[in-house]
């Protein structure tokens, strides 16, 4: 069921969005090209983040530091069933969107996008957001300094999202 959903969502969205837009009289192709240019800029803007993060994680893994961290942290993480490899992503996800994306990319590149770890990273990346960035931008925009329980709620959501991603991926792809 979950897999069937995955296969159909994108074709369905593209089909309905294009037909709807055409019937509404939108110049679909011109609009497409306009948006596609933004896609180019976005990919190029990601390069510095990717270089910084992939170098750091690559070093961390190849030097053996990752193995060391695994030995130290394994007892805590195994309780929740979280593989140690996803730890950098889990820490970075609420803090910096581009850096988290870079970590996700690094994991897919190293373990393969269709591996369990690759899919886990993808699911985590997609199901959580950069809580601290969102709060900073939105509260900052209207000058609110006392944010009350917003941060606690946002971080709770991230934690639940990460654990849920691990659990569901183990179930569906494991």
């Amino acid at each position, binding site marked *: 069921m979950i897999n069937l959903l995955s296969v159909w969502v994108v074709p369905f969205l593209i089909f309905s969005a294009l037909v709807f837009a055409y019937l509404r009289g939108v110049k679909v192709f011109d609009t497409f090209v306009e948006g596609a240019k933004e896609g180019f800029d976005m990919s190029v803007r990601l390069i510095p983040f990717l270089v910084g993060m992939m170098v750091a994680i690559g070093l961390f893994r190849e030097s053996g530091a990752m193995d060391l961290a695994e030995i130290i942290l394994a007892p805590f993480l195994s309780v929740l069933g979280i593989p140690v490899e996803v730890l950098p992503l889990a820490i970075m996800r609420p803090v910096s969107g581009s850096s988290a994306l870079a970590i996700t990319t690094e994991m897919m590149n190293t373990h393969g996008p269709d591996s369990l770890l690759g899919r886990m990273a993808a699911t985590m990346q997609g199901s*959580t957001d950069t809580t601290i960035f969102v709060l900073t931008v939105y509260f900052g925009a209207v000058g609110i300094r006392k944010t009350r329980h917003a941060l606690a709620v946002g971080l709770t959501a991230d934690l639940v999202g990460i654990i849920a991603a691990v659990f569901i991926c183990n179930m569906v792809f494991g």
Partner: protein
Amino acid sequence: MINLLWVGMIAAAILVAGATGRVELVTQSIFTSAEKAVGIALNLISIMAFWLGIMKIIEKSGFIHLVIFFLKPVAYWLFPGIPHDHTAMNAMLMNMSANLLGMGNAATPFGIKAMEELQKLNDRPDTATDNMCTFLAVNTASLTLIPTTVIAIRSATGSLNPTDIIGTTIVATFCSTAAAITADRFFRYWNNRKSRGRC
């Protein structure tokens, strides 16, 4: 946080490599990783260009209003005390729908607009209201139907079926959103028991 993590990873790696007598690996590893990073970013251009093209069409065609129609009952329940035809409600609906469709870039301006409108309903301008907290709870939980960027990266790194994580992402994002709303409702209830009536 990001600075500490970055320095920590690199410093720890160099120390461990040095201690195990494999320092020469450090320079080598930096070059290969950096090269890979640029390669992936170049691959990413193809699918990102396509997706953002489609997103632009969705944005221009008013397709988003179809989503808003289904979201309305949920939004009315989430944000009590805000008139249904208020600009704040409208901006929040646009923001949530854009997020749902994976249009992160388009969602932010609506979100900021919503915050400005909510601020007009706020009698203590330096303190967040209940509805602001709820709005940000929904936003940080990132309820998405199609994680476009992740799909793009999967295809850039050579996945055989880049979209097969949509199902698991929807389930996980549903869990995190449910957790966010539950936690938010808990705080709302807790605070209102102490001080009556703020929205």
